[in-house]
């Protein structure tokens, strides 16, 4: 252990601790910095995190210094603050004043540092600044402004060290140096958009988000990516019922600080123009809930087959199983076996492109393969209830359903299954409801509702619970909280499901 004094405070740290981390703990906030990143190698090029260490002739960068017993460190001395201002000024000396048109405004490292300790008047003429290429598309998702770049090299290190794809380099030298891809190379790896997150300024920005919304207008909700079984923790940035982007949320046990590009784009499905907004009854078109309830009552009188989906939440799977039991329906399945399976990679993307297949196991639901399902449909007497997924994407299943008729579908979009349904009940996407997903680690992760539901879209759990009540269950839960309490008492996960910790919970595992 090393005992050191930082800004007059005596603290102890394990040997080998970076002085940068030690200072963060002592100060309650990180030292000014651009190039340092906890998941990347040390570059030491921005020079902002310089501190005064007694006994050393010059200021030293904290990121490349290890704590030593007896060190006396000053992070806010006059010498350090003066150097900080000077170095910040060096960063800004060629930086274009693009703030009015730059997407990074409001979450920009230069703006933040300047407001924190800069606040000086520029001494240099605008006309003399270095000019470099602006708005250069360097990949399917990323656009580069070379003038704004402060050459912190985070993006280059990310592509070398995290994805191992090495698309980016820093070319030329001196103030002609610029980040970019070499001729014939695109920044197109599956994690390219993480470079946008780590770029402290508006040099690397998202093509998808470009000019869409000022960041200070966005509200932020914590959720879990629905794209695959990894369950990266995300932050949903939205305003007035519209999602503008997803960002990864730090979870050292699941995704670290990253997520894949594909996952970031899952928000688009929420605003798919084919979304089901009103209940629909074949023959009658759109009908209000009050009218469809009657027809539903008849159909739900005899239910012969129930199919769920691994895209649904744990609460919904639990209620579906309960409903099946109450209806006396023994042919109940969690979904189509092997559906939505592609290739995974070594980083985060899982081959299982559903967020909650493990939830099926937890709630005791089995999957069925398409051929067997088609046969089962043919032999079913009574209504077929489909919750989520899109089993009719398989042609055999689609034919069987069409031939059978009497299909009630709780769905989100006008897809193949919706096309063969008798009654369509519009339900929420992951962003419009709260719930729990179980990821590939068996980790229960809760997510909050980000945006409101359009039209007559309802939460799935509520629809299922009402169906449950309609089937005669007097204890059908009346709130999501109650669903979780009931689920907790029946599944015994070892934790209060209404109080899941932010990092998630693995029943029976190390938490």
């Amino acid at each position, binding site marked *: 252990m090393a005992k050191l004094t930082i800004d007059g405070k005596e603290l102890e740290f394990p040997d080998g601790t970076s002085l940068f981390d030690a200072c963060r703990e002592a100060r309650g906030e990180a030292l000014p910095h651009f190039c340092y990143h906890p998941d990347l190698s040390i570059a030491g090029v921005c020079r902002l995190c310089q501190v005064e260490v007694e006994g050393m002739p010059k200021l030293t960068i904290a990121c490349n210094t290890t704590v030593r017993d007896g060190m006396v460190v000053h992070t806010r001395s006059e010498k350090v603050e003066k150097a900080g201002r000077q170095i910040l000024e060096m960063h800004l000396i060629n930086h274009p004043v693009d703030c009015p048109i730059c997407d990074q405004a409001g979450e920009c490292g230069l703006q933040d540092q300047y407001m924190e300790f800069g606040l000086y008047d520029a001494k240099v003429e605008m006309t003399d600044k270095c000019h470099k290429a602006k708005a250069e598309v360097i990949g399917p998702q990323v656009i580069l402004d070379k003038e704004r770049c402060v050459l912190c090299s985070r993006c*280059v290190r990310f592509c070398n060290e995290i994805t191992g*794809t*090495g*698309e*980016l*380099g*820093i*070319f*030329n*030298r001196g103030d002609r140096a610029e980040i970019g*891809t*070499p*001729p*014939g*190379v*695109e920044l*197109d*790896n599956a994690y390219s958009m993480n470079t946008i997150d780590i770029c402290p300024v508006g040099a690397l920005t998202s093509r998808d988000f470009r000019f869409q919304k000022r960041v200070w207008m966005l509200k932020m909700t914590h959720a879990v990516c629905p794209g695959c079984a990894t369950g990266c923790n995300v932050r949903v940035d939205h305003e007035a019922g519209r999602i503008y982007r997803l960002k990864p949320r730090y979870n050292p046990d699941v995704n670290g600080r990253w997520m894949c590009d594909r996952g970031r784009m899952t928000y688009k499905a929420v605003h798919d123009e084919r979304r089901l907004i009103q209940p629909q009854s074949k023959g009658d078109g759109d009908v209000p809930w009050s009218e469809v309830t009657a027809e539903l009552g008849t159909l739900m009188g005899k239910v012969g087959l129930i199919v769920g989906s691994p895209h649904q939440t744990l609460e919904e799977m639990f209620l579906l199983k309960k409903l099946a039991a109450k209806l006396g329906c023994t042919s109940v399945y969690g979904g189509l076996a092997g559906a939505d399976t592609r290739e995974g990679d070594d980083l985060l993307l899982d081959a299982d492109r559903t967020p909650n297949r493990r939830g099926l196991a937890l709630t005791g639901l089995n999957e069925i393969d398409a051929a067997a399902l088609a046969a089962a449909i043919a032999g079913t007497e009574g209504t077929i209830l489909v919750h989520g997924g899109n089993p009719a994407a398989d042609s055999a299943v689609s034919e069987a359903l069409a031939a059978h008729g009497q299909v009630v579908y709780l769905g989100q979009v006008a897809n193949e299954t919706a096309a063969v349904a008798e009654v369509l009940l519009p339900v929420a996407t992951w962003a419009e409801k709260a719930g729990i997903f179980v990821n590939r680690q068996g980790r229960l992760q809760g997510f909050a509702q980000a945006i409101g539901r359009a039209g007559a879209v309802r939460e799935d759990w509520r629809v299922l619970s009402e169906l449950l009540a309609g089937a005669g269950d007097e204890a059908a839960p009346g709130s999501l909280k109650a669903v979780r309490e009931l689920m907790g008492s029946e599944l015994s996960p070892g934790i209060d499901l209404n109080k899941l910790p932010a990092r998630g919970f693995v029943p029976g595992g190390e938490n």
Partner: protein
Amino acid sequence: MNRPVENQAAFALSPETTARIDRIVERYPTKASALMPCIWAITDELNHVPPGGVDFLVAKLEVTKARVYEVLSFYTMYRTEPQAEHVLQVCHNISCHIMGARNVIAQMEKRLGIRMGETTPDGKFGLEGAECLGACGHGPVVQLGKHLYEYLDTAKVDDLLENLRKGTVPRADTDRELEA
């Protein structure tokens, strides 16, 4: 990722250069560390490294394209475009400046009809500035190919350019008469 650029002329090296590169790769401790001498081998034959040469290096040394272009763009002696037949690099650093480099440059510009940084339309002469060439007490100097022409004045410039125009390369000051 590291895809070759489409539609480029086929890249080929002479057997001598290929053999030289193989020897380099064998001697250097790692493949990546052989990058600079390999670039020199290609440059010695072709006077620059074309896109095909970059792809060759990527494959041979198992480095990324970004790395190769970083190195090519960082060092002033590496070129990615074909060069003029005679590239005259005149030192414009302090000692040569004091000893009259400006006049030497002006004379070259006058005689060649181009400014510093340009190439003659017939592709025969390129005129460039260079930082200190390690001949400060012998200045002003110009580098042509491997050698230096030193102690320049306007008369010597005229002499050099006339010779080059005729197709003869006068003996350089650094090309000393040595005992075998």
